[in-house]
């Protein structure tokens, strides 16, 4: 049996405070199933119903003359907008099959003008308001788990991070000065001249997601056990910022680049990708030689 939200005030009250259970068991920190959430934005829905035992389902296929429209907001976002702070109890998991997306959300509803020019609860209709137009303020109904699969929520930051890790980011090569062999006492200058910003456009569940990857940290493995870290790709002499002095010997140096990123969905606001990834550039091998001073007779 399906019941619409507008007629289930009692059920709403009973469900307030219901604690959701886990998606499923994890092995330590490794969990199966989709980790897809609606992100931090607000979702709009035309219809919300209880389908099955305690399952709230949101969609955009409302019956004719449905008296309300709905919006769904994360509790933390809702509380923050109300001048409050995020609370630990705002975080609840929702039982959901692997192919569904559910989230613990605040449901708000707003009256719609019915075809006969009235509202479902008899609230006065402003002059000129046409049937189907929303009137009045948004009213918080409940906080509960809502199946939002039908709303096709935009990719979450975590979902984007998974794509971010698979992007073909440049493997920045180590450039060294002086070229060829180095000299003891003459610091070897390191830099890289590869691209430090890359833009990708990917399709995630039908959403156009633009990801801008930026090389945010450079880890220089000098080959003698020393590791240098910079937030700059370095530069050739004399503007160099990364250099290292060696003892005599042969060394293999390499650069590991850490990439951070931002993303936007369908041209929307930019947000940080929650995590970084790295690429390893090809190593370079060079010798560092010991130079010795020799006195010579210029007339010899």
């Amino acid at each position: 049996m399906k019941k619409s939200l507008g007629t289930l005030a009692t059920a709403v009250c009973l469900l307030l405070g219901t604690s959701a259970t886990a998606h499923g068991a994890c092995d330590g920190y490794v969990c199966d199933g989709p980790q897809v959430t609606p992100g931090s934005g607000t979702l709009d829905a035309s219809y919300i119903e209880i389908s099955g035992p305690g399952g709230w389902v949101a969609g955009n296929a409302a019956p004719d003359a449905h008296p309300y429209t709905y919006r769904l907001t994360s509790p933390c976002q809702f509380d923050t907008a109300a001048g409050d702070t995020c609370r630990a109890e705002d975080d609840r998991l929702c039982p959901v099959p692997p192919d569904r997306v559910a989230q613990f959300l605040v449901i708000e509803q707003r009256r719609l003008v019915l075809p006969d020019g009235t509202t479902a609860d008899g609230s006065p209709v402003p002059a000129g308001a046409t049937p189907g137009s929303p009137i009045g303020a948004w009213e918080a109904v409940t906080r509960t788990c809502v199946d939002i699969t039908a709303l096709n929520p935009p990719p979450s930051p975590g979902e984007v991070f998974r794509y971010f890790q698979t992007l073909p980011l440049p493997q920045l090569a180590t450039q060294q000065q002086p070229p060829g062999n180095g000299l003891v006492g003459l610091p070897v200058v390191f830099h890289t001249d590869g691209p430090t910003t890359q833009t990708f456009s990917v399709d995630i569940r039908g959403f156009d997601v633009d990801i801008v990857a930026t090389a945010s940290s450079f880890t220089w493995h000098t080959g003698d056990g020393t590791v240098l870290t910079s937030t700059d790709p370095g530069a050739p002499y004399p503007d160099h910022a990364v250099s290292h002095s060696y003892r005599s010997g042969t060394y293999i140096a390499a650069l590991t680049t850490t990439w951070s990123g931002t993303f936007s969905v369908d041209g929307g606001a930019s947000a940080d990708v929650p995590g970084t990834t790295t690429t390893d550039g090809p190593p370079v091998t060079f010798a560092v030689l010991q130079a010795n001073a020799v006195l010579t007779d210029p007339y010899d």
Partner: protein
Amino acid sequence: MARRTTLRLVAGLAVGVALLGGCAEKQEASDTLPSAGAAEPSEAELPPLGPAEFPVPDGAREKTPEGALSFARYYMSLGKEIGAGSVPAQSLRDLSVSCPLCQQIAASYEADQQSGYTYRGFTYTFKEYGPPLVTGNEAELGFVYSQSEYVVVDASGREVLERSGDASGDLQSGMLLQWRADLNSWLVSSLTVG
């Protein structure tokens, strides 16, 4: 966007000077690291945070890249303590905010603890890609996480095969942290494992 270069180790001599000196006398390679950053408030000033048996270390309660990294390491180490039964799984919830995966992991551990299960042989590795990026009240970092094979046993010591786990292999992972001034600590706001 302006960038600030932060070298952890910088050669002490300019190239030109080194060139002159290098031919005259032997130079030793520079291979020392600078000392740690500015001192933070003394540890005694911080109220306890986290489970009493395994509190958040004071070093993880600093609003610095090092503090964020320490907190991330601590958070990912909680699983071993919880699995051993020495720490309540609620800790994972208390030290996160708006983090669905954190809640999912906590719920799984809580179910195991309620069933009287403990983990044997559980070890893990955590290797960060680099220092966390701290911007305002947020920090982000990427890391490689892996878990060993482990065996879950019930209260009588009998193995629970359906809850035991295989080695995970290296999992590319990421974490967002949010600085909470009222707690003087970081909290996990987003976690992705694998």
